[in-house]
């Protein structure tokens, strides 16, 4: 059950629905009665995306593309900007492979863009990070308000590899950004962050699965979200520690602010542990503004609006501060300021 197989077979019954445990809060079957036809090849000037100027290699795809491969063996940080634009209606499918050779260092700046059309977009990424290699992946998703978009990245890590990811999104009509990480190699380090700022009737689903299959792995995960109006934020995080994956240290945090009475946040932070020599924890908080902090700021002479904006910025800022690539961090800061109306 996936959007990819449904699009391939042109069969709506293969869409994941709320009856599928992993999709219970992001129902595609109930939303899409028919699947739009595959999009026509795009003719015109293609947008290059927000990260093009930061990259050694900018790549852009409009609507659909044939599968392609990005391979990097550079030991020095090498920056690839990968921009996917959905322009016009129809269904768009794209898939790519990213391979970082042993000891390599790649920075992948990924961005999505959608116009106002009611498109259905699916992106499949397969990422392999070699032994002692590093990959930092930033995803900046700016889908259209009527778009339905699913992006699934499968990441496999070699021994002592480092993988850091930050997903920033303002949602879509229905959007899912899923990352599945497996580290069979020993000593791999994973950072998986995310932030969602939703308004209107937008929906964003950040789903992650981390499988610790080797020893001495670490995972640090922090996701923050702000929902307003009638929007809906979904966070599903699963950490699996397989039998024998000893000395794993995994931490997961998800914190969301609900700023309207009609907004909704659903969260499922899961720990599945099959080994005993582990340290695993998760924390999850969902709620309204901290009235004490708000009062404190106002009492220091700040108008309420400014106090709210400042507190929200600081709330989301914690995720953005963890981005290592400086240019991407600045872009993320601008994105947050814009999203929060600062």
């Amino acid at each position, binding site marked *: 059950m996936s959007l990819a197989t449904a699009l391939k077979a042109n069969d709506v019954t293969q869409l994941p629905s709320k009856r599928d445990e992993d999709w219970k809060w992001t129902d595609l079957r109930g939303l899409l009665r028919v699947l739009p036809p595959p999009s026509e090849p795009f003719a015109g000037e293609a947008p290059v995306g927000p990260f093009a100027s930061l990259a050694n290699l900018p790549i852009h795809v409009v609507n659909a593309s044939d599968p392609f491969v990005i391979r990097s063996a550079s030991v020095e940080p090498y920056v690839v900007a990968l921009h996917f634009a959905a322009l016009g209606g129809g269904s768009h499918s794209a898939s790519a492979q990213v391979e970082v050779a042993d000891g390599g260092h790649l920075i992948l700046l990924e961005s999505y863009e959608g116009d106002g059309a009611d498109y259905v977009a699916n992106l499949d990424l397969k990422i392999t990070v070699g032994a002692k290699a590093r990959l930092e992946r930033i995803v900046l998703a700016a889908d259209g308000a009527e778009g339905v978009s699913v992006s699934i990245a499968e990441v496999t890590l070699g021994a002592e590899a480092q993988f850091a990811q930050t997903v920033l999104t303002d949602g879509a009509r229905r959007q899912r950004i899923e990352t599945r990480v497996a580290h069979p190699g020993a000593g791999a380090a994973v950072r998986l962050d995310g932030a969602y700022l939703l308004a209107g009737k937008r929906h964003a689903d950040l789903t992650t699965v981390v499988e610790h299959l080797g020893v001495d792995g670490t995972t640090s995960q922090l996701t923050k979200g702000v929902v307003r109006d009638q929007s809906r934020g979904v966070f599903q995080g699963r950490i699996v520690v397989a039998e024998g994956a000893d000395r794993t240290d995994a931490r997961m945090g998800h914190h969301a602010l609900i700023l309207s009475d009609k907004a909704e*946040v659903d969260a499922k*932070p*899961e*720990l599945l*542990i099959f080994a005993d*020599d582990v340290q695993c924890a998760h924390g*999850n908080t969902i709620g309204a503004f901290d009235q004490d902090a708000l009062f404190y700021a106002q009492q220091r002479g700040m108008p309420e609006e400014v106090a709210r904006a400042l507190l929200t910025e600081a709330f989301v800022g914690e995720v953005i501060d963890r981005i290592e690539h400086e240019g991407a961090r600045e872009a993320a800061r601008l994105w947050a300021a814009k999203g929060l109306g600062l």
Partner: protein
Amino acid sequence: MAAVKQTVEHVESLEKYKHGFVTDIEQDFAPKGLSPDIVRFISAKKNEPAWMLEYRLDAYERWLAMDEPEWAKVYFPRIDYQDSYYYAAPKEKVGPASLDEVDPDILATYAKLGIPLREQEVLAGVKGAPRYAVDAVFDSVSVVTTFKKELAEAGVIFCSMSEAIREHPELVKKYLSSVVPVSDNYYACLNAAVFSDGSFVYVPPGVRCPMELSTYFRINAENSGQFERTLIIADKGSYVSYLEGCTAPMRDENQLHAAVVELIILDDAEIKYSTVQNWYPGDPETGKGGIYNFVTKRADCRGDRAKVSWTQVETGSAITWKYPSCILRGESSVGEFYSIAITNGRQQADTGTKMIHLGANTRSRIISKGISAGRSSNTYRGLVSAHPKAKGARNFTQCDSLLIGKTCAAHTVPYVEARNGQCVFEHEATTTKLSEDQLFYAMQRGLSQEEAVQLLVNGFVKDVLQELPMEFAVEAQKLVAISLEGSVG
């Protein structure tokens, strides 16, 4: 030092599952299998009115159309529902008029289990010893209910379910299945069709129940399932504390226990429901036998400022599938869930709670402590949700899991759904093994490894144990010790 001494004493009294004996008494069985005729047979055996038979047959029809749930992290061969007895009762000519007429073998069984069925024995005990009324359910029927007279003076109705159907049909009709609908889930629906007995409690407005109420469930017969149904109603401003304990003989085949518990709490009332579950867990080496404990428990806080508190100590059962839940409907109502779930050997537990916040300013608290040892698996699964109208809802959840050994598993699967901007939900969970430093410290002070583990485990579960009524807390602490026997070294 007192706690250490107590622990040492408990470790000394460690033994294998001690309730695994069988009582040889003459039993009345319904024929094996399940059909409308069996449902009619059970209903007739209990001299039930026509409306009850109709209710059962309707449930049976619905059950046929349902599928067994498969989402829990428990694995077992498919159950053949036609290969079980749905009714087994100790044989008796006429209903016992007093305790003296109850089969002495049954009384001996309960005495072995340490249940003070005879009031005089309780009264003859230490002066000022806590007294509690007991309803004892043996396989399919309630054999005796104690302290009825004294409770009746306070206006409290405490009797077996079949008696309530006969004597208080208006209350049963009004509340039965009003919290757990007939077709709520597969096992609850099966229970509605074939339930044989259970306890019924009604506490009238403004009454504080003068003593703890308690039910002991015992599965004795071979190849039989136990399906009891408990219904407790706390009317406005009342209070009742209810305890439940369960045991079963050691057998090689699996036996099904599919109970339904419904609690109804009206304005300003409170129910405290405590369970010490010690069904036979099956053979720790082979995983053979043991009880399948598929239970639906739900409380409905219908009134404003109503409060319900679930406390459970789950040590037995081959498989536990159980989620005592709270529907917080009344304004400012409160739900609490305190749980210790221990799995050892080849046990599997998937247990947790649901806190459904519907009313404004409702509050809930979840403290769950899971301990897995041996080759067992222990899952916490819980839901906290706030309806758009539940302004000011608050929840705090803490789930801690402790792993003892390399081959066990501990999972945490919480669901959180917040549907308004004025609720605050907090959740934290940890999974770790016993701290080497703490173990070393305890052992260096002269405790053996097993004693040291016991001490640390007692500390780990203390938050929950202290929520149990006094007489259960001691029993529960002992159980924790027994359940973890042989899990280290």
